[in-house]
């Protein structure tokens, strides 16, 4: 299988420019800048069926096309490297092992959208990533790949690394823009969309790290080549992050559309201790959970959507048969309650309410009314908030309650105070 985003990971010191240059490094950027028109670059990426790999799966070339041609304001590319979706850890590897692949993708993307400044927003905890990307930028500048008159052309580009400061919500693109402007990370109401009114009120494209790392190879080898590597409407490969109760947790670059069963049992080495699978989160904590009977699904945006869940950020969390699903729901609900930014009441109040409700059930004080109320509380968050965080609470926690309702009922039935538990108030 031909690897793309992880192709250099096994080499010695792959993060150094001298090593990146050995494998056609920056040739794609040179090709775009010297032989192609910006619109041609966008067309090639559209042909590639490259989709946003941060989680939304939006076609990348189409997104670039939303930048209004007539707007005289400066344009920005913002790289979303706030990787915080639980179960996801792929962008960290790109930052640390192939930062030049990211920079080359940034150069090509900026050329395509007519931007001369890119900000790379990296979560603050990724100290090593921040240092590695900054070092790579200095290397690239010294070689004339960044700065004024890149590669002897008239194209200028500055790339700035912006460290985050520990807030999951800043992975939401409009919250990220606010954070980048020096505010707390509150998502913005859309429209206007960032393509029209983004960073500093200017047209802005926001792309994920892995997405941009694919852009260089697409320009070098052609959009059709990339599209053929994946499945229908989902071009190329994805870096799947596998964690939890598997024998070999880690990152696996595989074609879009690889069956989930194959990823768990072949690539990640199966379930620890030869145990049975109980449940899988297929695309980061926000994705509805799948039961062991539901893993014969292809891992691409469209197939997972059809299966009632989502491909999300590619974070696969595996749970074996020792897992208490009420506890697992509580852990997920705790995450959402902790990370809700507090801007919208349904999410701020609802996520805490959901967490306290499940915690009460788990701790043996649940009442039947708690379980009766739970779906209503959960369903009143999604769709009623500014950003998709509220939807994530509804979809994620709702799936535990729906698919493992028996376990919740069992907790209520053995509640410490049965009379109280049976009461309806």
């Amino acid at each position, binding site marked *: 299988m031909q690897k793309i985003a992880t192709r250099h990971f096994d080499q010695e010191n792959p993060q150094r420019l001298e090593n990146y240059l050995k494998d056609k490094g920056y040739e794609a950027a040179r090709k775009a800048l010297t032989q192609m028109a910006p619109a041609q670059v966008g067309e090639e990426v559209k042909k590639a069926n490259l989709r946003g790999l941060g989680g939304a799966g939006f076609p990348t070339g189409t997104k670039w096309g939303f930048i209004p041609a007539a707007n005289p304001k400066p344009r920005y590319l913002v790289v979303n490297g706030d990787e915080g979706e639980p*179960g996801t850890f792929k962008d960290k590897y790109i930052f640390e092992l192939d930062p030049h692949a990211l920079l080359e993708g940034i150069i090509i993307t900026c050329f395509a959208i007519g931007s001369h400044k890119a900000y790379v927003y990296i979560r603050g*905890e990724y100290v090593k990533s921040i240092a590695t990307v900054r070092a790579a930028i200095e290397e690239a500048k010294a070689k004339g790949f960044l700065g004024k008159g890149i590669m002897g052309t008239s194209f200028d580009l500055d790339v700035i690394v912006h460290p985050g400061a520990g807030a999951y919500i800043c992975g939401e693109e409009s919250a990220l823009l606010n*954070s980048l*402007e020096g505010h707390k990370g509150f998502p913005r109401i859309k429209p206007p969309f960032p393509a029209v009114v983004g960073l500093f009120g200017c047209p802005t494209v926001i792309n994920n790290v892995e997405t941009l790392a694919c852009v260089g190879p697409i320009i070098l080898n052609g959009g059709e080549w990339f599209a053929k590597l994946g499945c229908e409407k989902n071009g190329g490969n994805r870096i799947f992050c596998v964690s939890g109760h598997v024998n070999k*947790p880690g990152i696996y670059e595989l074609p879009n559309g690889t069956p989930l069963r194959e990823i768990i049992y072949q690539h990640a080495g199966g379930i620890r201790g030869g145990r049975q699978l109980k449940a899988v989160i297929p695309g980061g904590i926000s994705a509805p959970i799948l039961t062991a009977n539901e893993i014969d699904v292809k891992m691409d945006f469209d197939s997972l959507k059809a299966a009632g869940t989502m491909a999300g950020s590619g974070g696969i969390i595996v749970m074996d048969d020792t897992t208490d699903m009420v506890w697992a729901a509580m852990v997920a609900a*705790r995450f959402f309650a902790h990370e809700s930014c507090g801007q919208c009441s349904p999410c701020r109040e609802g996520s805490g309410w959901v967490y306290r409700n499940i915690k009460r059930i788990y701790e043996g004080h649940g009442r039947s009314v708690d379980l009766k109320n739970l779906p209503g509380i959960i369903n009143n968050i999604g769709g009623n908030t500014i950003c998709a965080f509220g939807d994530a609470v509804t979809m994620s926690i709702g799936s535990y309650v729906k698919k493992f309702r028996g376990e919740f009922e069992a907790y209520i039935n053995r509640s410490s105070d049965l009379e109280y538990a049976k009461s309806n108030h």
Partner: protein
Amino acid sequence: MQELLPQLDKIVSQYEQKQAALLPVLHVVQEHKGLISPETEQEVAAYLGIPVVHVHEVVSFYHLFHQKPKGKCHFAVCQTTSCALLGAQEVIDHIRTRLGIEPGETTPDGKFSLSVVECLGACEIAPMMQCNKEYKGFLNKKKVDELIDQNS
């Protein structure tokens, strides 16, 4: 903050608007001072020409900025799903027992502090924590003991 000005000026020059430099400026100042005190908030506000309340709002919103001193060795232990599945609670409980502190507290000698955090993006090495700047993975009681002994 005076001695940091050359470094801070360089950061500010990277942005179209001064306020946009707030997060990176706070990182540098916190690294230097160990925390963001109310006086520091005032200095940063004056430096960037923004209201103090705005700086405070940002400092209190983001988990990585702290208004109280941390221990010399700070354990930020992840409690989210992948880490939780592989024993994060045992790790947290072991640290609590060994150091006699609860999450959010610092040992009286100032050597250690503990916080419990949400996903740090390193589920492949779960259960894990961030020990100052470094990620430490595949934690168990023995590894925690080693970390504590090395820093005692």
